[in-house]
């Protein structure tokens, strides 16, 4: 208790200081100012050489300065600044001024005059630049003050004529950051100023120093970012900058042109050397396309990236980017793509066997051939063939964005994307597969394209293969041969990489579902049925056969004529698969059978509102009936929990909410049950086992609350407070049970104190939420707090017991979107027949493959646990690169776990689990009161992996 009191006293002390803070502020200022700045002053005076002074300043810069004493320090620094002869020291002082003016809570307008004054007499260019930087810091701190801004702009304009590029750079930066935005200010002077800023900056586009030119463009971009509308006249200037000698200038100019093209897409600009005019956005597009073949790869990346976001460009310009007119000896030649297309449309397969198959055909008019078109010609062809993979990736991304907005372009760029599947860098391949998936709504693959796509299925990289499966899920195929080809290639893939099983099945599910009419004619072939003879029944465990069935059954879902083609064993297999792989095989209406899944199938139709209503109603019911007799309450809770669980199973989209509320109700139920126990009525403390039930309940509630807090995504602070409240109740229960069952007072002291700390913490953390907790346990407890602090543990326990029993049941508001985190381990599968063998003492690597759903930031919280039969447990942290993100809210963990064990003779089971590590202190950002390293592993999902091993 004494220790506890000490703590309280200490806390109160600190509180008092904070409250009185404002009253004694002036006094404190006076106290700190001399101490801090005086020390600096003395140090600086002591300094004999510039190097010394620099040292002192550096030391000074390492320590933070409070907002109140900043001004004093600034004065001291300025004083030394005027006296100092050495430029480097002045430079450091200037930079310190900038740093100091950034101090939170300090308003730097008081030092602005001084800073501007120092500018006047400064000779060193470096110091000048630094001073301007300081002014920039001051200016950005005072965005609301137009007078200050106008003044700073004046200063900047004055120094723009400086001979040093550094100073000019900073001036332009200042103009870019502070150039006034108020266009609507009616005053003439203001209006002029706004016009000026752009013109002034524009004048420096032709500065002799490339760094200044870059800074000028950047300043212009900065103006744009701050919402100032750039003038269209800048466009011509910017176009000239595209042929600058320096890459940073060109790179910035490309950006500026892009910005302007977004601002004035529909303006008309003339084409030089002709009378024609085109839209500005088209012109800009052409110019940026031109930059895709720039000499510097930085510019190329920049240009390729920006092309993607120019959606307003006309379609014929867009299509030119994929066009590179081929010729050979001045005769027009068709591209390989065109040839492929022609062969396809003429219904012939490529012979490809003749030399000169690609022989040029028509003569070209030499005058008409323009080798470097000023337009957008072939920009993407160049970009996709670039030497640097950064450029290629940027080009693929741009293609993706443009194709998403234009279906006709998507159709055209398909050939090029398919070609990228053979890039030498895996990243590029992957990116192009993803791109293709994103645009797949707009396209239908031709057979020859499909052929190339499918060839990649043999890639040894798992990522590529899976991305490709994902792609195939969304692809439209035009012919039945295409489907057949895809199936054959997928089966080949399955044979080569059996681990792809799941992914391939899923892929075939969608492929079948998308193309029922194309699958139909293939069915007899695929099932190898014969009109007259019964064929042998295929092996049901063959993954390839399952794959075929998955394709057929999914196609049959929307094609009612298909089941007629099935043979008897197919129906049997259907029943089996429908049970074992229900996520892959849909419910079919089979002829001559009752719909086996009739209770399930109606639920497919979206009845969102009724089920939502049901959920709401059942919860309402629970919350409203607070004063029922205990027996009734318990029953009602039990029923509701059951209902909710069932609802969660039926309605997958409500599963999160239902589970969440069911868990909460279960906690409540446990609490009520625990409080109903007879033993509470006895006055004397019990030292027997009878209270097991209560303490177990307390424990379980704690566990459940942790699950509620950390296993669901989308939990808001309103819920968190209720969860914590429940936990607090559980803790109180625990305390009471302990008090009743343990002898002696000693351990109770500590527990009481800890509990009161928790209450205090709760109050501090959720102070804003407290008004919502009327009449609750905490509410009452806080009222009694003064009494509790001073009473003995036995008293405390008694009060707690009473409060706990009186307190009401809190209403849990439901969040908008809540999902339960879950994980499924795909590999290792549970019932493996062949055990892993390894020599004792050495390690064996076990591949673990799992999908995680609704886990936020899995890289840091998901762990793998290995349980050995002798009770040894090992927690393994997977590498961040082992996690892939195939879709929103979904993650995939593919990692290797190293197993090792000492002597063991018999085959035995090893359990592999996935854990979700949590840290209760992070979410509510508690200070270090609670041991913040508390990281209790929580079993999230456990699937047994049987890996028997022996010596």
């Amino acid at each position: 208790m004494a220790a506890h009191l000490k703590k309280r006293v200490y806390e109160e002390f600190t509180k008092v200081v904070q409250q009185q803070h404002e009253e004694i502020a002036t006094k404190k200022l006076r106290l700190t100012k001399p101490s801090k700045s005086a020390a600096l002053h003395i140090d600086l005076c002591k300094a004999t050489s510039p190097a010394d002074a620099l040292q002192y300043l550096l030391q000074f810069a390492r320590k933070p300065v409070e907002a109140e004493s900043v001004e004093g320090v600034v004065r001291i620094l300025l004083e030394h600044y005027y006296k100092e002869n050495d430029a480097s020291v002045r430079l450091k002082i200037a930079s310190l001024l900038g740093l100091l003016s950034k101090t939170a809570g300090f308003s730097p307008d008081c030092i602005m005059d001084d800073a501007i004054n120092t500018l006047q007499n400064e000779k060193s260019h470096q110091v000048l630049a630094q001073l301007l930087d300081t002014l920039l810091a001051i200016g950005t701190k005072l965005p609301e003050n137009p007078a200050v801004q106008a003044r700073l702009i004046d200063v900047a304009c004055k120094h723009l004529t400086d001979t040093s590029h550094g100073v000019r750079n900073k001036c332009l930066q200042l103009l870019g950051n502070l150039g006034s935005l108020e266009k609507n200010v009616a005053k003439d002077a203001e209006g002029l100023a706004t016009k000026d800023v752009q013109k002034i900056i524009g004048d420096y586009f032709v500065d002799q120093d490339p760094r200044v030119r870059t800074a000028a463009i950047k300043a212009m971009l900065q103006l744009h970012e701050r919402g100032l509308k750039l003038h269209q006249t800048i466009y011509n200037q910017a176009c000239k900058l595209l042929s600058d000698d320096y890459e940073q200038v060109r790179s910035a100019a490309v950006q500026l042109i892009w910005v302007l093209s977004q601002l004035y897409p529909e303006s008309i600009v003339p084409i030089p050397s002709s009378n024609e005019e085109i839209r500005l956005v088209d012109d800009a597009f052409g110019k940026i396309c031109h930059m895709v073949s720039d000499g510097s790869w930085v510019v190329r990346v920049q240009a390729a990236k920006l092309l993607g976001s120019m959606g307003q460009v006309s379609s014929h310009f867009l299509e030119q980017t994929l066009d590179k007119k081929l010729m050979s000896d001045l005769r027009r030649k068709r591209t390989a793509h065109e040839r492929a297309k022609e062969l396809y449309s003429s219904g012939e397969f490529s012979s490809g066997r003749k030399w000169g198959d690609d022989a040029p055909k028509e003569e070209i008019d030499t005058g008409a051939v323009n080798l470097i078109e000023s337009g957008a010609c072939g920009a993407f062809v160049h970009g996709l063939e670039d030497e640097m993979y950064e450029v290629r990736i940027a080009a693929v991304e741009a293609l993706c964005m443009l194709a998403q907005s234009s279906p006709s372009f998507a159709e055209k760029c398909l050939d090029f994307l398919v070609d990228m599947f053979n890039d030498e860098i895996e990243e590029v391949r992957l990116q192009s597969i993803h791109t293709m998936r994103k645009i797949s709504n707009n396209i239908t693959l031709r057979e020859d394209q499909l052929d190339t796509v499918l060839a990649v299925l043999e890639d040894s990289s798992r990522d590529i293969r899976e991305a490709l499966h994902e792609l195939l899920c969304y692809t439209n195929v035009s012919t039945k041969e295409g489907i057949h080809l895809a199936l054959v290639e997928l089966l080949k893939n399955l044979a080569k990489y059996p681990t792809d099983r799941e992914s391939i099945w899923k892929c075939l599910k969608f492929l079948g579902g998308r193309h029922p009419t194309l699958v139909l004619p293939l069915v007899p072939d695929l099932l190898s049925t014969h009109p007259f003879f019964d064929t042998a029944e295929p092996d049901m465990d063959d993954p390839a056969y399952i794959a075929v069935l998955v394709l057929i059954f999914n196609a049959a879902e929307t094609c009612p004529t298909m089941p007629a083609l099935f043979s008897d064993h197919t129906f049997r297999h259907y029943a089996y698969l429908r049970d074992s792989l229900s996520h892959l095989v849909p419910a079919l209406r089979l002829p001559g059978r009752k719909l086996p899944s009739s209770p399930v199938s109606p639920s497919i139709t979206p009845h969102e509102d009724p089920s939502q209503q049901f959920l709401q109603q059942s919860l309402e019911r629970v919350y409203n009936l607070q004063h029922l007799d205990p027996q009734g309450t318990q029953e009602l809770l039990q029923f509701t929990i059951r209902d909710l669980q069932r609802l969660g199973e039926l309605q997958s989209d409500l599963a999160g909410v239902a589970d969440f509320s069911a868990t909460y109700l279960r906690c409540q139920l446990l609490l009520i049950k625990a409080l109903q126990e007879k033993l509470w009525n006895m006055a004397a403390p019990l030292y027997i086992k009878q209270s097991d039930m209560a303490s177990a309940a307390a424990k379980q509630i704690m566990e459940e609350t942790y699950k509620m807090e950390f296993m669901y995504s989308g939990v808001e602070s309103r819920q968190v407070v209720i969860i914590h409240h429940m936990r607090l109740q559980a803790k109180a229960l625990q305390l009471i049970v302990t008090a009743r069952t343990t002898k002696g007072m000693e351990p109770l002291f500590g527990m009481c104190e800890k509990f009161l700390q928790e209450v205090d913490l709760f109050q501090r953390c959720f102070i804003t939420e407290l008004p919502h907790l009327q009449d609750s346990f905490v509410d009452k407890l806080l009222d009694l707090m003064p009494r509790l602090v001073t009473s003995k543990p036995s008293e405390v326990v008694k009060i707690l017991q009473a409060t706990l029993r009186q307190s009401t049941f809190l209403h849990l508001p439901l969040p908008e979107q809540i999902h339960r985190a879950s994980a499924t381990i795909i590999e290792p599968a549970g019932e493996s027949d062949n055990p892993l063998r390894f020599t004792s003492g050495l390690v064996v690597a076990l591949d673990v493959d799992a999908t995680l759903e609704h886990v936020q930031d899995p890289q840091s919280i998901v762990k793998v646990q290995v349980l050995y039969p002798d009770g040894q447990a090992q927690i393994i942290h997977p590498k961040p690169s082992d996690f892939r993100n195939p879709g929103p809210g979904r993650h995939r963990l593919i990692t290797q776990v190293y197993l090792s064990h000492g002597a063991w003779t018999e085959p035995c089971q090893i359990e592999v689990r996935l854990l979700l590590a949590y840290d209760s202190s992070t979410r509510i950002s508690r200070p270090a009161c609670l041991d913040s390293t508390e990281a209790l592993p929580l079993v999230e999902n456990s699937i047994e992996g049987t890996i028997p091993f022996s010596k």
Partner: protein
Amino acid sequence: MPEIKVTPLGAGQDVGRSCILVSIAGKNVMLDCGMHMGYNDDRRFPDFSYITQNGRLTDFLDCVIISHFHLDHCGALPYFSEMVGYDGPIYMTHPTKAICPILLEDYRKITVDKKGETNFFTSQMIKDCMKKVVAVHLHQTVQVDDELEIKAYYAGHVLGAAMFQIKVGSESAVYTGDYNMTPDRHLGAAWIDKCRPNLLITESTYATTIRDSKRCRERDFLKKVHETVERGGKVLIPVFALGRAQELCILLETFWERMNLKAPIYFSTGLTEKANHYYKLFITWTNQKIRKTFVQRNMFEFKHIKAFDRAFADNPGPMVVFATPGMLHAGQSLQIFRKWAGNEKNMVIMPGYCVQGTVGHKILSGQRKLEMEGRQILEVKMQVEYMSFSAHADAKGIMQLVRQAEPDNVLLVHGEAKKMEFLKQKIEQEFHVNCYMPANGETVTLLTHPNIPVGISLGLLKREMALGLLPDAKKPKLMHGTLIMKDNNFRLVSSEQALKELGLAEHQLRFTCRVHIHDTRKEQETVLRVYSHLKSVLKAHSVQHLPDGSVMVESILIQATAHSEDPGTKVLLVSWTYQDEELGSYLTSLLKKGLPQAPS
């Protein structure tokens, strides 16, 4: 007038024996020293007697530059340096220096040992010749002598190929050698900065071709090989040992790796092993992918490609074999071809052009029955494919390079005349620069306008800058100073300093001008009126009224006297020094306009 002279001794409107003489600002440089593959007589080497009739080549040439190791660019080098006699420096890049002697030795062997020619250079000559070679790095500026400097740029094409910039003072020329603007599996794309040379000498092999995307080509190639191997057939790829062979190897190697294929790939031994060794060494000359991954694995350390043995050709099962030479005219590739030709499951892929008369050319043109030596008839059942893998820039690539370098003139070499004509016209039309295409022995002379650097003292510069308004980079600016030409350099100094340096006394030069003004008032009053008028007009200058009755504007003196004949007319005497010419003439013109009517 300074000029650049260019004379191609080879490769002028022709492909083969590249050899171009350039004389630039008095320096003579020979670019490449190649042989012609089409000839076996004297025409095979360039005519070096053109350079100098009598007298040593070393005295005439300042240096020789070799762009890359192909024989049509370096084949005549030992003959030139050892037999004709040249002792000056020869510049080439490190990989070229390493690989060049191997190819020269091979060439020598074929000519001397196989064809039995005499009077050809010997192995020792090749060695001696290589001793004269100075190796250069990319982007390294090498000072050949005090004035001449050269610099190498990356050119793609083959390992170690480079473009060279030759610079004397402010005049410069760039020679591209052979180059490739699209990257391939093992080499990057050619690159040059905006060096704005006076002359760009570029190859123009594909002057009239725009090539298809390389990806289709690669994909086709891989698909064909893959299909054949899956069928259990054998694939024969006849190649030349260096260059394309490595690209195709890498292509197949990575494909095998990606697709987990198991069929063996063989490479016929000999020359190639040595060459592969150099490819492994010169990783920095390869493309991004190889450069980035060689720490984990050097791409040229092939995992799937093994050395070929004669006996392997009869092994059952699928395989891929690279065999030399490329045109199926002799050697190992022809032997294997004869073995495999009868099976329709097999395939031969010709990755390059075949000369007329070779077996390669015959089968490509569709001949199915070949007459071999000994009157044997060979029936070709195997599939024959043609794939073009060429590493020259196409028309678009050439234009791109011209755009990058921004030359004043372009000169085309290493191509056929008819095709050059087209490209020449395009370049002139597109870039508005002169374009030349001389034939062998024809000299092109270009006038240049070199910049002449003039030194200026900082003090003078600052003083003059301070006078004017804002400095504007794009506009010429007027300056006052004295140009001193002394010891072959130019300096611009202030006139005081010039006087001091020359030990001359300064002469005052004054202009005086009389302006007649009709004014009936007294002289003093006139002066006052002039004073007040000038004061109001020239606000930026100091205008003083001196006690002796004259007006001073800056240092210009104005006095008024009455006219001797007509008292109604006053004569204003304006006098200024030469330095104040601008202001003085302005003042007179101002006064000539007359004074404003006095407020009377």
